[in-house]
């Protein structure tokens, strides 16, 4: 039996099979990020991916909080909310519950999403509403001009930590997994192909999709991720997670990740001691493995895992909500307000 949500979703997919191009998703607003900012690429890839999703534009809404990243909705030719610092996830939840037929996207920053908005974020992930969360992680507060954020590394010197940060940073992927997110991924502004692929997968996921995007803030935190994004260093410092494939990396594809007990370690495939068959094979459906992989993030001896950590199915909140409403109606009837008011002891006053 299909639910209301199914019906609505199907409707959105079939009603308008309009063939959009990325241009159709560009608004008439001047894009006002600093020249060279990583946000431009994320915007461009999102606009490129949207036509492939087959969702009519009038069924799409982008919701942001406050930050440089949060200017995003102005630039998408869809519906948009530029909302409250930290609250986009809660506002998006309201939208999705009122209108499950809409395709709801949250754009947030590391400060917006995990500092002031950390509470709402984890509860959205836990509820599993069908909302896509794009967290632009630049490890800094961009809009307020360079204070540290909850992803700034230990020792980071910023305007508000002139002697170095002593706050241990969040690892967004681990945080999302810990909050029982059903889809957790990491991608990068400077890898357009990967970024597009991850956005598509996130869009297709049925439930909350959490996507961390490494984003270069070239003004206040330039090069924070260059190790992982630049040609010279990328291959040796990043391991791309691919479902069903062993974890191989390195310029020569000569290194791999092997599990030693529960601990991942780097092994060489060159000296004959280990082969591809000894390597850890990724499985997007394995929650335990997802924790192990996400935990590699800040370990200096390990390459940075990038890709989809976890993609599993669990009923969405709106499905459950619709089911519960139908159940309650069926069980107790629609209800009649005047009947209720006139039930029990009533008086007539003349």
């Amino acid at each position, binding site marked *: 039996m299909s639910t209301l949500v199914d019906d609505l979703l199907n409707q959105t997919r079939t009603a308008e099979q309009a063939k959009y191009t990325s241009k159709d998703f560009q608004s008439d607003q001047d894009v006002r990020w600093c020249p060279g900012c990583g946000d431009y690429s994320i915007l461009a890839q999102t606009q490129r991916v949207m036509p492939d999703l087959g969702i009519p534009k009038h069924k799409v809404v982008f919701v942001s909080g406050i930050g440089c990243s949060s200017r995003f909705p102005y630039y998408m030719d869809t519906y948009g909310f*530029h909302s409250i*610092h*930290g609250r986009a996830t809660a506002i998006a939840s309201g939208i999705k519950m009122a209108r499950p037929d809409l395709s709801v996207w949250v754009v947030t920053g590391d400060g917006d999403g995990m500092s*002031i908005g950390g509470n709402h974020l984890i509860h959205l992930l836990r509820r599993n509403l069908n909302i896509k969360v794009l967290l632009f992680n630049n490890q800094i507060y961009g809009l307020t001009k360079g*204070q*540290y954020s*909850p992803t700034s590394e230990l020792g980071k010197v910023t305007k*508000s*930590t002139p*002697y170095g940060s002593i706050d241990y940073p969040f690892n967004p992927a681990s945080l999302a997994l810990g909050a029982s997110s059903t889809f957790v991924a990491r991608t990068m502004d400077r890898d357009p192909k990967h970024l597009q692929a991850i956005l598509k997968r996130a869009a297709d996921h049925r439930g909350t999709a959490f996507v961390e995007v490494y984003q270069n803030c070239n003004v206040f935190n330039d090069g924070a991720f260059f190790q992982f994004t630049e040609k010279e260093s990328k291959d040796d410092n990043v391991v791309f997670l691919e479902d069903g494939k062993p974890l191989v990396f390195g310029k020569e594809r000569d290194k791999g990740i092997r599990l030693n007990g529960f601990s991942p370690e780097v092994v060489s495939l060159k000296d004959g001691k280990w082969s591809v068959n000894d390597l850890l094979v990724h499985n997007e459906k394995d929650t335990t493995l997802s924790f192990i992989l996400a935990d590699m993030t800040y370990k200096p001896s390990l390459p940075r895992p990038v890709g989809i950590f976890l993609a599993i199915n669990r009923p969405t909140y709106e499905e459950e909500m619709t089911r519960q409403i139908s159940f309650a109606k069926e069980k107790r009837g629609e209800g009649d307000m005047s009947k209720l008011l006139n039930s029990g002891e009533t008086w007539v006053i003349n």
Partner: protein
Amino acid sequence: MKANSEISLMKGNEALAEAALRAGMQAYFGYPITPQSEILEYLAVHGTKRGAVILQAESELAAINMVYGAAGAGARVMISSSSPGISLMQEGISYMASAEIPFLIVNVQRGGPGLGTIQPSQGDYFQATKGGGHGDYRLIVLAPASVQEMADFVFDGFRLAEKYRVGTMILADGALGQMMEKVVQPPMGSLPLAEKPWATAGKPPSRERNILTSLFIQPEKMEEVNLKLQRKYREIQSEVRYEAIQVEDADIILVAFGLAARISQKALELARHKGIRVGLVRPITLYPFPSAILSQIALSAEAFLVVEMNAGQMLEDVELAVRGEKPVHFKGRMGGMLPSPEEVLREIESIAAVHAANSELIS
């Protein structure tokens, strides 16, 4: 920055931050927001090396509750933000009012409502003086009109907060925070720390343990707590401060606070130049409000003109004080716009014209 009193050229936000260190502030909790992030940033550099705890919290909500904790443990604590952040703090402010925790809070206002603009505004007057959070409580509210006062009021703020065990707010605006002026900083350590026997700073055998709470389930007890607070607020009425400029012979009295008072003073000079007798009352404490002086002036002056950077908030307090004795006019700009002295002058002239016509009718 040396520790003795000295003259320097400083931004309002930085002058305030430096003053806080000189006033013996032991802890500061904040969160970046324009136009006041310099307070956090200045303190991060200069406070840490002078032994103060300076922390950027995860939100204003966290920051105000860190204040609750640190001030409750007896420390001299300051917090600052700008309008949207102050809104987030209202819950903590109300709880601290009930638990009688002294603290200093700085609002460098920007235009609202909502995210609004980063330009200066006085739109938070109601929130600051009438509550903002829930329940019957007040903050002492000081309104600086210069960089010098941004610094001086930090001392007054801590002193009053600790004297009455209340929160004191410095209600500034984005222009005062960002403008540079000469400022004389008071010497370091000129505000000694007093005993705080109520604080949760360990239990000596000589007394009962201290528990800080704002929960009083029994209505009789809750009313008692409220009555105590109200007694305190009545006592605080004695702390009223204002500045009266050329009011003795004035026909038209301008009433303005903060930056609007500076603009009004300029307009006053322009009007005097044109032979219109104008005076200015500048409330320095917005709570307690200088009602008495306004009631008194209402007997001699002909009309009032309230000038604010909002839609008319202090206006209501002026109307209450004047009690319909004389007409009260209003000139305001909103959303980060400032009224110009010329705009205020035009308003003065039209009031003067009406007034002249009226007196001709009478005579």
